[in-house]
């Protein structure tokens, strides 16, 4: 999957996203970026882009998310390819532009218009940011038809998926998990793109399937290490895109292992993990040898205190416990 050492660099996920945007902006002058305080590069991934592409193509926006996320729709409708930088928590104020316009326009107008837009949604959580700044409700965009939903768990995937997202002709919600934005990984020099809808086996195993996304992937891999020491062989599968979802890869893995742990950092109820559990209960039922284990964030808002916040999320330990439970 990754290239030989000569051709790659060890860079962070943030840098990988930055490279993808930079290269696509060089390639296609219709690509431009909107967001708050991006010219000064506050949030990393846009760093240096204003300097290279100018303030017209890297536009600082006022605190008017509904207007500028909606303006992205209008700009896309007339032939541009906007990238919008934001965080999931700031999307509530813009939800109407996202749902009523971005997700619906193409279908509602009988396919008259393509909307090639990437909405970059940082997921802040795990950083003592409290309830207002820790939202991870991307399952909403799995539920609402019209968005593609992408979730990178490492630098390599990040760059390849971002390129595909920018080249795709539909609205994409690109989830950026801040717990792993600083993690480094090998990224090739050469141009490459990762197709949407193709899951990736991050670790092969035979006893239990762990489906994990974004920042849950490293935790699942850590759990798999622990389990290996106990003689349990866990397969870690990263869907990489939630819409489209690579059902077949999940079903194939469960067909092999007979057991499923599904891990999500969204709140448990109606989560991506719930959906994957439901799919396997429908289509992989005869493979299942034990109850499905669904992990997710506790159904409370994210508390500020460091004494409480870590209790909310799945950890390597709770993932390993869940895997063990499937083997009892």
């Amino acid at each position, binding site marked *: 999957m990754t290239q030989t050492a000569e051709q790659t660099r060890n860079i962070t996920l943030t840098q990988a996203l930055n490279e993808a945007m930079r290269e696509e902006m060089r390639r296609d002058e219709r690509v431009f970026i909107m967001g708050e305080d991006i010219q000064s590069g506050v949030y990393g991934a846009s760093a240096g882009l204003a300097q290279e592409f100018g303030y017209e193509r890297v536009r600082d926006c*006022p605190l008017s998310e*509904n207007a*500028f996320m909606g303006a992205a729709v*209008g*700009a896309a*409708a*007339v032939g541009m390819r906007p990238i919008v930088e934001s965080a999931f928590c700031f999307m509530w104020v813009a939800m109407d532009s996202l749902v009523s316009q971005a997700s619906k326009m*193409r279908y509602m107008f009988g*396919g008259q218009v393509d909307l090639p837009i990437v909405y970059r949604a940082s997921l802040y959580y795990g950083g003592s940011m409290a309830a207002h700044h820790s939202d991870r409700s991307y399952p909403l965009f799995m539920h609402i038809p019209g968005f593609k939903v992408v979730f990178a768990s490492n630098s390599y995937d990040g760059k390849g998926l971002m390129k595909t997202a920018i080249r795709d002709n539909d609205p994409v919600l690109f989830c950026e998990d801040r717990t792993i934005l600083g993690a480094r990984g090998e990224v090739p020099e050469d141009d490459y793109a990762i197709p949407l809808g193709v899951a990736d086996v991050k670790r092969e195993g035979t006893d239990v399937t762990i489906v994990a996304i974004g920042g849950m992937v490293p935790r699942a891999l850590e759990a798999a290490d622990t389990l290996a020491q106990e003689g349990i062989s866990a397969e870690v599968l990263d869907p990489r895109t939630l819409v*489209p979802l690579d059902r077949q890869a999940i079903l194939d893995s469960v067909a092999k292992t007979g057991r499923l742990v599904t891990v999500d950092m969204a709140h448990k109820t109606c989560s991506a993990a719930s959906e994957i559990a439901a799919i396997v209960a429908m289509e992989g039922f005869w493979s299942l040898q034990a109850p499905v284990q669904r992990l997710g964030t506790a159904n409370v808002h994210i508390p500020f205190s460091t004494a409480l916040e870590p209790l909310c999320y799945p950890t390597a330990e709770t993932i390993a416990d869940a895997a063990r439970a499937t083997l009892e």
Partner: protein
Amino acid sequence: MLEDKTLLMEMLRRMVRIRLFEERVIQLVERGEIVGAAHSYIGEEAVAVGACMALRDDDWMTGNHRSHGHPIAKGGDVNKAMAELLGKATGLCKGKGGSMHLADFSVGILGESGILGSSIPTAVGAALGSVLQGNDRVAVPFFGDGASNEGAFHESINLAAIWKLPVVFLCENNQYAVSSSFKKMVASENISDRSAAYNIPGVLVDGQDCIAMYEAVSAAVARARAGEGPSLIEGRTYRYYDHSLGLGRIVRTAYREDEEVELWKQRDPINIHKERLLSQGMATQKEIDAIDAETQRQIDDATEFARQSPYPEPEALFEDMFADPIPLE
């Protein structure tokens, strides 16, 4: 005095086309041939026509729930519009949009929104597209007095103003949002007064006079094309019918006086324009009658076209969601 006869006659033609289209829609709603919600534009024709005649074909517009008139004013296809209202595969949106979601990208109609205020940012984005692409296409979002109370209105105007985008914000103040008078719901006296908050021109226009609308919008369009930024125009107008066809039955309390309705009907935009054309000697009664008759035929043809057209096939259900398709269940 505007003396361009071709223009003046085209204004009449488009206003009459809207009127007769809408009268036909009422019949089709009553006969059950059109289902769902339908909001009549009768009485407000001069606003859309005056505004759209000030635009080029390649300028953009967005509309709202009460937007059968705007596509016609912008030069859209009447056959396809009627077919859309009947849910037919030949409709503007292949039957997927219906009355509240007409769109015709071929003549700059970026589509209509049933959610109020929601398509104002879309128009701003189209104007941003003009700037980025280096062309001078202007975008006109049409919205009501009610919608001007939505947050999207404020954010959009501010955004267009700071970026000096070529947008003409066009508020059709028909004085009511369903049963609510704008006098109770809008804190400023006129909606055009709100322009002060954005340092842009705000103009109150007689929305029953298509020439007044045309002139005000032309000035705003010139400003926009010159890179001087957006304007806010309020066309003061009136809707003759209740909020939506059929809703009359369920509004239980009178929210406006019969006399008020009658007064406004005396200022009918089509009559005003016809009388002016006659009194100024710009047109003869015969020419005017010919437009009426010709338009009636056009609407009959459109009805016939719509009726004869096939419904979409079941496979269409899963089509058009994505430009780069994915499996859907």
